[in-house]
């Protein structure tokens, strides 16, 4: 259970990216080799890409990989630098929380208006359902990394 909690986004990403690779490749092979194609491949890959991006962002957040410019803060004295880092973390949390909220609104809108996807006619909210949760996970991982403390 602990392993699952710990590895959740890595597992999601690995499975997702592998499936996307296989689907995209299968479409090429089938289109070239036979008189058929998996006509809706593009829609599935694009949908998967959105999920891959938010859950991948959670992996990166946890490893502190989201790139920042450290030029200015490196010139500050240590106590001031610490304060600035706290402010930066709060600002980042604010944006991520806003992203969760806006993606939640997107989901509610899409469930309300019944929009369907273009190629497969699936409810559009299926593709967006994981977005608010994905951003929430990014937020959690970002806070975890901040609490764990980087070199500061």
């Amino acid at each position, binding site marked *: 259970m602990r392993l699952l909690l710990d590895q959740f986004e890595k597992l999601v990403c*690995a499975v997702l990216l592998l499936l996307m*690779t296989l689907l995209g490749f299968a479409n090429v092979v089938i289109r070239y080799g036979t008189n058929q194609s998996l006509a809706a491949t593009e829609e599935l890959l*694009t949908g998967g890409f959105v999920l891959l*991006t938010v859950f991948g962002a959670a992996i990166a957040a946890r490893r502190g990989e989201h790139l*920042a410019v450290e030029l200015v*803060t490196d010139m500050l004295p240590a106590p001031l630098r610490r304060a600035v880092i706290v402010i930066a973390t709060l*600002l980042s949390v604010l944006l991520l929380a806003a992203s969760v909220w*806006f993606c939640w609104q997107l989901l509610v809108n899409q469930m309300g208006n019944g929009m369907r996807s273009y190629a497969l006619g699936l409810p559009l909210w299926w593709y967006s359902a994981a977005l608010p949760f994905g951003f929430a996970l990014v937020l959690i991982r970002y806070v975890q990394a901040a609490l764990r403390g980087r070199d500061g």
Partner: protein
Amino acid sequence: MADIGAGGLMVGLFFLFLALRVPVAFALGLSALAAMWQLGFGLDLVGDLLSAGIAKFSLLAIPFFILAGNLMGKLGIADRMIRFFRVLVGGLPGGMGLVGTVVCLFWGAVSGSGPASVAAIGPMIVKSMEEDGYSRAFAAGLVSTGAAMSIVIPPSIGLVIYGVLAETSIADLFIAAIIPGLVCGALMLCALPFGRVRNATATKALSPNPYPGLSYGAALWRSFMDSFWGLMTPVVILGGIYSGIFTPTEAAIVASVYALAVGGLAYRTLSIRGLYECLADSAAGSSVVMLVVAYAGLFGWVVTVDDLIGQYSGALLGLSQNQWVILAVIMLVVLIAGMFMDAVTIMFICLPIFLPVMRELQWDPIWFGVLIMVNLAIGLITPPVGINLYVAANITRLPLEKVARGALPFLLTSLIGLAVIAAFPGLTRVMLP
């Protein structure tokens, strides 16, 4: 204008947040949200804009080329390839710097996306350049710049969009862009003497021949056979694209599967654990880039709605009657836009303003398109938003500023390249009938 407006507020806040060490992606998003608040328009579109910003099929090449690059590194394919190039031209002046530049330009004919190219070939080039005595930052800068030429050298999604907007032959644009792309690449070589931190010949950091005791010919043959399947990658991808088996975006997927097949079947270096880590790392690496792209989408949206570029470029274009001054102003506007936004957004916002000027002054639309494309390629390596720099920072584990500084010499050579193409429009006509 009494107040700075929403757009001005956004740009100011963005730099403030950057200075405060807020990650670039979040700084873009925060400043854009503040501007939307100020505009009183757009906040109820944010969810849609975020998802639309990511869900672009043409960006899908990014995670797959990152995956292909990671697999090639992890499965030993890249090492063997580099070994071959070492034997082949590593003994010439410039050594691995020369090799890296050549590989970048060659890869430009495979990939249509700058960041995807960094991801695919960056790790192996940076590693071998470092072994050859170059600084890691310099190598990262070289790869960022060389890979930026992927959007100039065909296939290029950017040139497709330009051709449509400018009502110009896309096929001609593709051909016209080849020589200018190579010119920019050749100019990059001028920066090589400044990149070595150690004297490779003195320290023997990297011998051109990694097979002691073998003659040049024998070593070449041996390294060729060792790296055969890896060397076939561009052949498979180019062959597949130009014989119409798959699209440039699908090529990224095929490259990943090919790397898996070579690692699994030929070299037997593939393990489940290794694959798992590779997949997760690739997703994380692609997300670092894609989150910037997604929030930059909000930023670009405000630039569009607030007509930021139209406001200022109109005034700038009125500055002079001299067409060279006007061209310089246009190039400057695109350069500045390139510091903040992605190539496609810039084209949609700027070209409707610049194309009428181009027609009025009777400039060659092909030449102008190539100039714009080289300029947009430069945008991939200019901070604060230089997507190629981000990918390079991600794969080299270097801070963004270090990579940006490493790219500085190449930024200069690229600007010289831009000036050369501007001064000699004939360069775009060499290969055209």
